[in-house]
């Protein structure tokens, strides 16, 4: 079987029953994603498939040979942390760290969902979801943290989301100014 993971091509000869999670951990040496429950209940195995967050324990590797798969290893390493990894460190958003790779991959997928305007269960207006802490908690409910670092996880995600939102606002301002110059 052939795979594209973190922009790299991999080949592996694995049993047909192998989950995407086990492929990465047991056969390709990508042990960042963790096996918690192996039943889609804890979120520790969260990866991004074509940019969407999924539970890698609940899908077969063989079904994803045409997809772009991203694991925590593809986001950044000790020398070049992704802004969310950096924020998790700064906000002490973990204790044991076991759920952290899944939390971060999930947060990346979740922030992209917010960018697309997707509502959540707690959105009062399905067309115009807010982005408060309650929204972060609801949208991250598929990621459990048995150390209960939840308040700091929410803070870390909020910080990155706010920086991204500020950047978007600045971009829009620049665009408006550019349009005015053209006009």
């Amino acid at each position, binding site marked *: 079987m052939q795979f594209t993971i973190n922009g790299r091509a991999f080949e592996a000869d694995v049993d047909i029953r192998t989950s995407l999670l086990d492929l990465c951990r047991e056969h390709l040496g990508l042990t960042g994603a963790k096996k918690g429950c192996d039943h*889609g209940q804890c979120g520790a195995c969260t990866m991004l498939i074509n940019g969407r967050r999924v539970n890698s324990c609940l899908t077969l590797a063989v079904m994803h040979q045409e997809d772009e798969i991203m694991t925590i290893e593809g986001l950044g390493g000790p020398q070049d942390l992704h802004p969310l990894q950096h924020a998790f460190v700064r906000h002490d958003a973990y204790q044991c760290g076991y759920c952290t790779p899944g939390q971060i991959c999930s947060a990346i997928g979740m922030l992209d969902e917010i960018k*697309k305007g*997707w509502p959540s*269960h707690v959105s009062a207006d399905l067309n115009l979801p807010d982005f408060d802490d309650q929204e972060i908690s609801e949208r991250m409910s598929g990621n459990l943290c048995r150390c209960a670092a939840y308040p700091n996880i929410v803070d870390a995600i909020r910080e990155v989301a706010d920086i991204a939102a500020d950047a978007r606002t600045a971009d829009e301002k620049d665009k408006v100014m550019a349009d005015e110059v053209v006009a």
Partner: protein
Amino acid sequence: MKTFDYRKALTPQVAVDMFDAETARFIAGGTNLLDLMKLQVETPDKLVDISRLDLATIDEQADDGLTIGALVPNADLAADPRVIDRYAVLSRALLAGASGQLRNKASTGGNLLQRTRCHYFYDTGSRCNKRAPGSGCDAIGGANRILAVLGTSEHCIATHPSDMAVAMRALDATVLTLKRDGDRRRISIHDFYCLPEDTPHIETVLETGELITHIELPKAPSGRQAYRKVRDRASYAFALVSVAAVIHMEERRIARAALAFGGLGPMPWRSEAVEAAIIGKAPTRETFEAAADALLAEAKGFGGNDFKIPLARRTLIATLRDLTEQ
């Protein structure tokens, strides 16, 4: 997990052709099927991968309804602007279920077909007529807090776990299928699910190898829509009781109503008697109590789930009160 033969289909007809034995299964999102295969509750000897079929779009119908491809992920369906605008009860039901990760993977067709979360169905060491026909039911007299109070039989008291399907029932959806012989069928969601009776392993009217291709929603109903779900934790939990409701008021009376219920029965539950109890009536406490009486007249608890009967009453009344307030 038992091993299996894996085949990927690229067209619906090839998919049904590949489904050549009772023991085969289609796999789309796989979030429920693989979970059950790991526990050997499901032991297919062949998986037909339908995840790449061209059935992942949502299209307008000439009569202002929507045709939803069976492979549209739950997340995309919930966030579709047409669904949000016209079928808010469906968006709300989808968003009340599962987690962000699961909604990204789980398909619309698969959601309709997901299996009960009864503990005894999942535990292969227990007796379960749904998993092993004729073996008995350990849920009756067991830990049945999450199980059904309506539509049960002496053989099975499992609940259908879907939130989405409850909204689909309130919206009068139609399930479109392709059979192995190439025939296509249109099945009203009201005729799609089976009561357990003495064959709880048969959950739908689908034939062996019959593939769900689309779900159709008729033109959006007028009135206000809501999905109210009561569960053990605030997020990422199955319904103890849920109500999908569409209520249209005219001159301070309930002119039209569609009410479907989750967490109570072996299928998303809908009863004409409940709607008949409120249509044409003023929205008073007595009217709402009459609806609850109609819903729960035949309700039967099994000890651990007795609480669902008064909970369903209160949830229904609260939903009706919210939707009929001026």
